[in-house]
């Protein structure tokens, strides 16, 4: 559908949303007339809930304006209907264009990072780990737990940075079949990296489900470990003073 003066060019909204999620919606309207048009916008959810409620704006010739609103996703698929009206010289509002977009109910994925460990020098410590000797090799283990009622394929991503903020390991993987059963956990093991700097190493971890439209179900961002120096380092030795005593 295309209006005489106004085109609703796009409804920006996610294709999937879980029940209870606040869904943000942007409706873009373009004035294709040769002068400014006073536009009124209405967006309705399944003809029941008007969440963009007669917002008006003078749109310049050729310009596009975005009208925004939001709604709480119900426990069903829904359709967004957007309607653009213009104010005529007669002082009345005339509907000129409309557009519809569906938002489909997404499964609410639930899972958690249930355990994180740092392996070093044939030892293991829970993350965050402390007093890790400098120059050991580190290996991260992360367990993702499936809190759903059915088996799920779990995915992981993490990035490790050294005390200077330099990335020393980045890891991403989806588990192979068979996937993780309800209530069970899957262990992800990354690659080895060097812990060659004293100070705090940091890690950011994200646990995912549903690889076709991945959903992050848990995350951690913080200290991976504190590395302590094992080698004395002296510098700048100088004679500050010398006196007869």
């Amino acid at each position, binding site marked *: 559908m295309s209006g005489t003066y106004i085109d609703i060019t796009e409804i920006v909204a996610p294709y999937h949303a879980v029940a209870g999620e606040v869904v943000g919606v942007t409706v873009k309207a373009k004035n294709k007339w040769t002068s400014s048009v006073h536009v009124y916008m209405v967006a309705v959810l399944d003809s029941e809930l008007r969440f963009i409620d007669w917002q008006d704006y003078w749109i310049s010739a050729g310009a596009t304006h975005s009208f925004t609103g939001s709604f709480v996703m119900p426990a069903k698929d829904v359709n967004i209907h957007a309607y653009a009206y213009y104010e005529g010289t007669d002082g009345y509002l005339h509907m000129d264009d409309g557009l519809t977009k569906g938002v489909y109910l997404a499964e609410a994925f639930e899972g958690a990072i249930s355990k994180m460990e740092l392996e070093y020098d044939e030892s293991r410590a829970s993350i965050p780990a402390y007093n890790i000797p400098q120059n050991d090799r580190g290996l991260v283990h992360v367990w993702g737990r499936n809190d759903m009622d059915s088996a799920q394929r779990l995915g992981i991503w993490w990035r490790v940075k050294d005390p200077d903020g330099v990335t020393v390991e980045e890891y991403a993987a989806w588990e192979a079949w068979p996937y993780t059963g309800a209530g069970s956990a899957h262990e992800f093991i990354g690659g080895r990296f060097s812990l060659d700097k*004293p*100070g705090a190493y940091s890690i950011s971890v994200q646990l995912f489900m549903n690889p076709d439209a991945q959903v992050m179900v848990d995350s951690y961002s913080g200290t991976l470990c504190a590395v*302590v*120096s*094992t*080698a*004395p*380092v*002296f*510098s*700048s*030795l*100088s*004679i*500050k*003073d*010398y*006196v*007869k*005593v």
Partner: protein
Amino acid sequence: MNGLVVQQVSLAELGDYRYLYDPATGMLYHYLYDPSRGVYALVFATGWVPAPKLVNVSYGDKLRITAAYVYQGPAFSGTLYGAIGQKVVSTFDEILAAQSTISVTEKTSPATLQATVDIPITTAIAGGKNYAIYVKIRDSGGATKIISDYYENAVYVVGAEPAFSALTITDYIKV
């Protein structure tokens, strides 16, 4: 490394150390033989600098040297070693030396620290001359960890023998 003069030092205390002296900069590079690799590895570098002051000392005195250094690492025990000596070619020929214990707690970030060492002035050193000083830090096994600059003309040792001069008759009268 062009222009460096290689000198094999003979001081037993230095073991397998070798010096490389760069006459252009006055720097002295200390190398230690690494038998596992069959090469000499640079351990530290130092150089001769004019001392900021000249301190007069006599036999029986002590020279107290205060050193400052930056440290990062685990708890450390070692010694601050100080020496009085003289410049021989480009090396430091030690005559008097002493050491004091230093004990540092773990430092996870660079920390500026101080230590002192007192060197007794004995007759082992000849009087009437200027001498140089330096300090270094050694671990409990005696290995040098870092060395300071060599301060040239830092100490004057007053001679032990009575020194008379300019004897003149200032007056003579009947009494």
